[in-house]
């Protein structure tokens, strides 16, 4: 993206006057979608020219992020092999064409992905109140990725990836639920056999619906089940959405409101095949 927020009024007005108003408006063109890279990026073919199109004003979950495949499937379902109308609005820092895309039936693809709940309104770069409204409606209806009460915005996920250290979340606010043990290196195959144990030191059982784990890279694992009062619950992580690294990782336990309730870290020295990493609680 090329936009930045201007904190100086003078600089902002100067920018207003000099840059965008002088840029020639690109003409819309019709092209066939030949590839869907991810939820918000498609490749179109016009004649013999292929162009990467980054959908303007929206942001879909990144590869390896929860719901990324569903978002990509949604975009594929709407566009793959179809003739679409592309209205360019600019270019981003990766030289991709930013654009609004109109589907053969007249629907706006950008809006449709937000309406279906597979994309976020890219609030930092878009002032399109229509997209903001569509996102609010999708959230309220729990469509698509909003089935997760507080999914991670792709920009926060990318920031966590970039930092590769501290996941982009606030301080830990303990409430009695903790990650007590992790099994990053089960005997045999890791995938589908790694496990976590959640402890509950409160006097009430806790339904883990809406709770999730997040690792240092920003990958997430949605929890399920009930932890009994003063009890523990072992969960085998059957879905390979958040591998526990054998050379160390950070794992956050996040409640349905998005609050981090526990953070644990381990390194390669703690990991031995078949042994649980205990966190001393």
């Amino acid at each position, binding site marked *: 993206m090329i936009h930045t927020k201007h904190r100086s*009024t003078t600089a902002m007005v100067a920018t207003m006057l000099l840059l*965008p108003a002088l840029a020639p408006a690109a003409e819309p063109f019709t092209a066939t979608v030949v590839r869907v890279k991810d939820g918000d990026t498609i490749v179109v073919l016009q004649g013999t020219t292929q162009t990467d199109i980054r959908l303007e004003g929206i942001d879909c979950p990144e590869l390896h992020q929860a719901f990324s495949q569903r978002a990509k499937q949604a975009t594929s379902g709407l566009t793959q092999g179809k003739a679409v109308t592309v209205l360019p609005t600019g270019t981003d820092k990766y030289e991709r064409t930013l654009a609004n895309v109109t589907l053969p039936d007249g629907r706006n693809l950008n809006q449709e992905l937000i309406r279906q709940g597979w994309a976020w309104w890219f609030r930092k770069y878009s002032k399109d109140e229509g997209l903001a409204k569509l996102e609010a409606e999708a959230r309220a209806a729990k469509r698509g990725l909003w089935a997760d009460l507080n999914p991670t915005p792709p920009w926060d996920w990318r920031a966590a990836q970039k930092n590769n250290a501290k996941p982009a979340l606030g301080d830990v606010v303990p409430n009695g639920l903790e990650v007590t043990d992790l099994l990053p290196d089960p005997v045999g195959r890791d995938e589908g056999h790694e496990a976590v144990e959640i402890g509950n030191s409160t006097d009430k059982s806790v339904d883990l619906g809406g709770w999730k784990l997040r690792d240092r890279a920003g990958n997430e694992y949605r929890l399920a089940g009930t932890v009994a009062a003063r009890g523990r619950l072992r969960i085998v992580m059957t879905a390979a959405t958040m591998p526990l690294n054998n050379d160390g990782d950070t794992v956050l336990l996040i409640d349905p409101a998005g609050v981090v309730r526990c953070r644990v870290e381990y390194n390669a020295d703690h990991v031995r095949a078949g042994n649980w990493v205990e966190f001393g609680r």
Partner: protein
Amino acid sequence: MKYDAKKISEMTETNLRLAKMRLAELPICCGREPSIAGLHGWVFEQTLQFCIREELAEHGLSPDVEEQVGIGGRAKADFRLAHVLIEVKTRGLFGMADVQKYGKYREQAEGRGYRYLFVTASETHEPYRRGIIEALGQSNVFILAQPGEWERLVTTIVQELKAKTGYCP
């Protein structure tokens, strides 16, 4: 109260349309309306400042105003009314990193004797809402889309200005 969130939103949209039309009248724009990131935010900020000053006038207060107030390093607040600094966001935070950033700004501002307030028209992402409240304190965060928030903002500023020793409207 002279204003509320709905009126402020309508004034913002009206003034945004006017701003685009008048910018388009500049010779170099050749009649084309600009499409600029930042213009909406700037218009909202100006609208908010105008409405606050109007409300303060009802209380006999007319504090001096300064925009883009440095609070140390590269940090700035959008505007200052006497010793009250106000950071304005149109549609909430742009990421979790903002929570930490504004938390740091608040510390810097308070270290210089300012009261630091954060105002946004809305915040739809619950972790951001919760995060900024935890970082700045409920009494310093105002989300205008929520009922009663405009009144609370004006009341907070009025009380702060009246309480400050040596302040003469």
